[in-house]
């Protein structure tokens, strides 16, 4: 029987990166680009936010891309077809603003590519010219390249070791585009140093730049304030005011610091878990 939140299919996208198709009809019906879900694997599990990278309302399924980084994400990598999540809550967060801007660049690093994909699709669907810049450690870590190619007018790839696309960072690919002066809007998602660097590059140009943030979160509904970020000197909650904010106003240093709050705990948890090999 197909119960609530059943895993319909699992595929590997890269080293410790899985794509899971999950039965969550309410989420599938109502989710929009930029929104996310909070999941728990077991009834005593931790609540963690995951981005919905695709949704099929008629099948009642959503696609989640998960990279093993902590105990709970490694637990998710153990899930196989037929397993169930204890909870999938969503869609959460404010959806991406979608309108005709002209020429857009969607910059994504690591598993951030899964977050960026629905944004690229939505902007492209609104008539924008969309250039995707995907950054990864290596070719093996590059995910959803094919889907991205279909969603964009042009896709550029950078890898740290040069095993795919150009050797270098996403900023190396973004620079020339900005120099051409034909960019109206930038979306960026990925590791904090990458988002900080992209924001710093576009700030002098005045090009509107949206960053999708990834702070620690508990409930995801505005209730705890744990995900608060400083944006333009104001305290905002990423779960309900975001997760997308004006990248030029985000205090990335504070975000980076707050994300280390439970590092010690996570290290201990990883040692406790069955999937300790990745620490």
């Amino acid at each position, binding site marked *: 029987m197909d119960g609530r939140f059943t895993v319909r299919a699992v595929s590997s996208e890269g080293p410790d990166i899985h794509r899971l198709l999950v039965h969550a009809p309410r989420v599938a019906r109502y989710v929009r680009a930029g929104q996310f879900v909070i999941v728990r694997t077991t009834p005593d599990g931790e609540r963690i936010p995951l981005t919905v990278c695709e949704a099929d309302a008629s099948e009642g399924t959503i696609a989640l891309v998960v990279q093993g980084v902590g105990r709970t994400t490694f637990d998710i990598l153990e899930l196989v077809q037929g397993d169930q999540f204890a909870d999938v*809550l*969503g869609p959460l967060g404010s959806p991406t603003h979608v309108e005709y801007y002209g020429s857009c660049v969607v910059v994504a690093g690591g598993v951030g590519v899964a977050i960026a994909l629905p944004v690229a699709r939505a902007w492209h669907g609104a008539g924008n010219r969309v250039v995707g810049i995907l950054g990864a450690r290596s070719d093996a870590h590059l995910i959803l390249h094919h889907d991205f190619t279909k969603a964009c007018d042009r896709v550029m790839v950078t890898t740290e070791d040069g095993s795919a696309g150009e050797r270098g960072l996403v900023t190396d690919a973004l620079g020339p585009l900005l120099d051409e002066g034909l960019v109206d809007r930038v979306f960026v998602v990925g590791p904090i140093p990458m988002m900080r660097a992209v924001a710093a590059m576009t700030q002098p140009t005045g090009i509107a730049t949206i960053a999708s943030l990834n702070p620690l979160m508990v*409930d995801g*509904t505005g*209730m705890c*304030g744990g995900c608060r970020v400083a944006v333009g000197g104001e305290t905002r909650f990423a779960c309900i005011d975001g997760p997308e904010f004006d990248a030029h106003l985000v205090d990335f240093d504070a975000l980076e610091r707050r994300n280390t709050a439970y590092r010690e705990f996570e290290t201990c948890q990883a040692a406790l878990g069955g999937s300790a090999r990745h620490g």
Partner: protein
Amino acid sequence: MGELSKRERMAMDRTPIGVRDPGERMGDFDEVSLGYTSGLAILEASRCLNCTRPVCIDGCPVGVRIDEFVKLVADGDIEGAAAVIQRDNVLPAVCGRVCPQESQCEGSCVLAKKGRPIAIGYLERFVADYERSHATRHDPVAVTRTGRRVAVVGSGPAGLACAGDLNRLGHAVTVFEALHELGGVLAYGIPAFRLPKDIVRAEIGRLEREGVAFETDVLIGSGMSLDDLMGPEGFDAVFVGTGAGLPRFPGIPGEDLIGVYSANEFLTRVNLMHAHDRSARTPVYDIADRPVVVIGGGNTAVDAARTSLRLGARTVTMLYRRSEAELPARLEEIDHAREEGVDMRFLVGPVSFNGEDGWLRSVTVQQMRLGEQDPDGRARPEPIPGATDVVDADVAIIAIGNAPNPILMRATPELQTTRRGTVSVDPITGATSMPGVFAGGDITTGGATVILALGAGRRAAVAIDAWLRGGEAGAVEPSFLLE
């Protein structure tokens, strides 16, 4: 006991309730108060003067027939007393524990003038607990189903009260809860040592047996909207009881330091996610042997302070900007907190959180004095120029109140709101600016009490029933308000 004269009854002292020893209770999250035995309950109930005009009921926001149930307890008919309470209160075991009785029923009791009102709260709690453990399960009362469907958004006190009454009136009710546990603030906010979670589950379980449907993991507003509920989802009316769950921050330097928590986050990590349990997957800062400060003076502040002690904090200091006389927390909780070693500093407010490498180390506080009265009658705290000092703190928990959760309103511009961000409603019926949509509890009042939310839920249920039957929402007067 029925033979006692009025004079004899008036001479009796209030029957004390059993309380666990502070040293013992600090080691766990089990309930602090032990409750009455049957004998003690009957003794306490027999003190009731059976007033011709029972003014205690005026003090109860849901209109529990206090005179009737107390009389039944005095006569030893506990199940009869339970039935009387349940007519008006869907959460008696909860209310018996968390209501501010001193400012409600017990505050209205004629014996309050002598400082020994009937312990209505303890009696309510006893009756509800007795019923839960002794009563033979009654089958749900058969009601004629109307075929109308009502969505209740939020499973906190307001939603539960509204759902219970609407179900008894024959409507099909589905309660949507965003979190994975039902109960709203009863689940994530109030700690187990004050309100054991199995009691919350049991009271909700009773509603479920009566026929109310519950669905967790559904947030209305960020996905499904009110229009979706009233349209494709097929509901005929909606009650919004989403509460005041958005924590306020003081807006002072350093509040993004690691170690600064909202009380909601701190309590959620412990109450909902069981972070105090070594095997839990959700962390809470290791506060063992560290200094903790709690900012605020309400029940939430006291809950956070007492929870910190149970997590092994070296010291816990509550900082309240007014004086002791204005402390808004329940008296019993303040007493329990002091017995457990919570230090309370009055007339101080935080001006900055100070850190080292991103971690909180101390709080700079401003000393206050009381000035003019606020419009609400409380003396306003004013800073004493130049009078600041620094309090050591590795963890600071902010409990200065909550704003209404804005998700639903942002998604529903046609739902009128007040300047304070609460949903605008008719004060009696809870009718909002959207036809068929009603609201009650903290989402309309701002942070208040469980029992006020229950009252609002009940009033809205009466109005929703009338609306579904084709009447005018504004014209309804709930029967339990007519005294």
